[in-house]
């Protein structure tokens, strides 16, 4: 009986471990926390972005803190300055895992502004 429980425990533990290892592991760039805690941001970042886009386009409010540009500034990969370039890039990693297609970057740049400036300076 003891052996059976040990086996059961082993199976459960290993499936739990497998779930953990399958989780997306995004490259968070510089990272850090400036708006809200990580779990809140995971659930609600899209509402903040959508609210801010209307404020910016229609009223000219360019508050840095929750602008898409500012998110990218910290979260773009330190390797390639992008949030969309690779499978484990900050935006791509989770959105691919959850199968949620985003079209932000059809128009918006996914590159850190400072890096873009360096590349496009005359």
């Amino acid at each position, binding site marked *: 009986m003891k052996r059976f429980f040990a086996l059961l425990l082993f199976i459960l533990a290993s499936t739990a471990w497998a779930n953990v290892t399958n989780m997306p592991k995004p490259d968070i760039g510089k990272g850090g926390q400036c708006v809200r805690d990580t779990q809140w941001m995971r659930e609600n970042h899209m509402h903040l972005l959508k609210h801010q886009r209307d*404020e910016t386009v229609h*009223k000219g409010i360019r508050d840095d803190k929750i602008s898409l540009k500012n998110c*990218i500034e910290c979260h773009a990969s330190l390797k390639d300055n992008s949030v969309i370039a690779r499978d484990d890039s900050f935006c791509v990693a989770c959105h691919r895992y959850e199968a949620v297609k985003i079209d932000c970057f*059809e*128009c918006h*740049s996914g590159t850190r*502004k400072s890096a873009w400036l360096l590349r*496009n300076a005359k």
Partner: protein
Amino acid sequence: MNDINTQRRNFLKTSVGAAAVAIAPGMLLFDMAHGKSEPVNGKVRWGMLIDAGQCKEGCNDCVTACNKENGLGSGTLTPTSAQWIRKIEIKDVSSGRELSLPMMCQHCESPPCVDVCPTGASFKRPDGIVLVDKHLCIGCRYCMMACPYKARSFVHEPLHDQNPDVPRGKGTVESCTLCVHRLDVGKQPACAEACPNKAILFGDLNDPNSEIAQKVHIVASVQVRADLQLNPSIRYMGL
């Protein structure tokens, strides 16, 4: 006792002064680096006064500056190239007088592009800038038909590596934004800054102390197609 008090007062005065001097540049830097958190208000009306007499034939500096600032691509024009500002040459057939001038979105007070837009994507900001909200634009191009100045372009091809300040994408209509991303941080539009002859004067038409309002008050200037009564913010002199 009195002596001590004066010293204390003086010390406080100087330290407050020193603190103000130390903080002020920081505050200015903060304001420059960060966008405004206040919404734009309707007291301002951005406009331009373009001196056609100063605009030189063959000079394309405003167009080049616009293309670079907004990432419209350089090089040769193709049938699908975006043109936010373009140089036009006009000639009076009877006198033979020739003129060269820049033409772009005239930022009308009553914009026909806004009237015809079925989704509300084409809109006028309170400070008079006519823009396209590309989140709402469905690319129907009614606004391009409605504009009497042929000021708008449609993005036909997929784009890459846009300026982070100027999002643009396939399937939407776009036009001159008066460099709204520069205005909102206190800079001038790229074309006005680039003109070697200072033929483009940019400013607030509603502010009686601004250079543009004072000049509009004393020199003869016209609006293009004034007969349509759209009241554009872009005015031309020397036509």
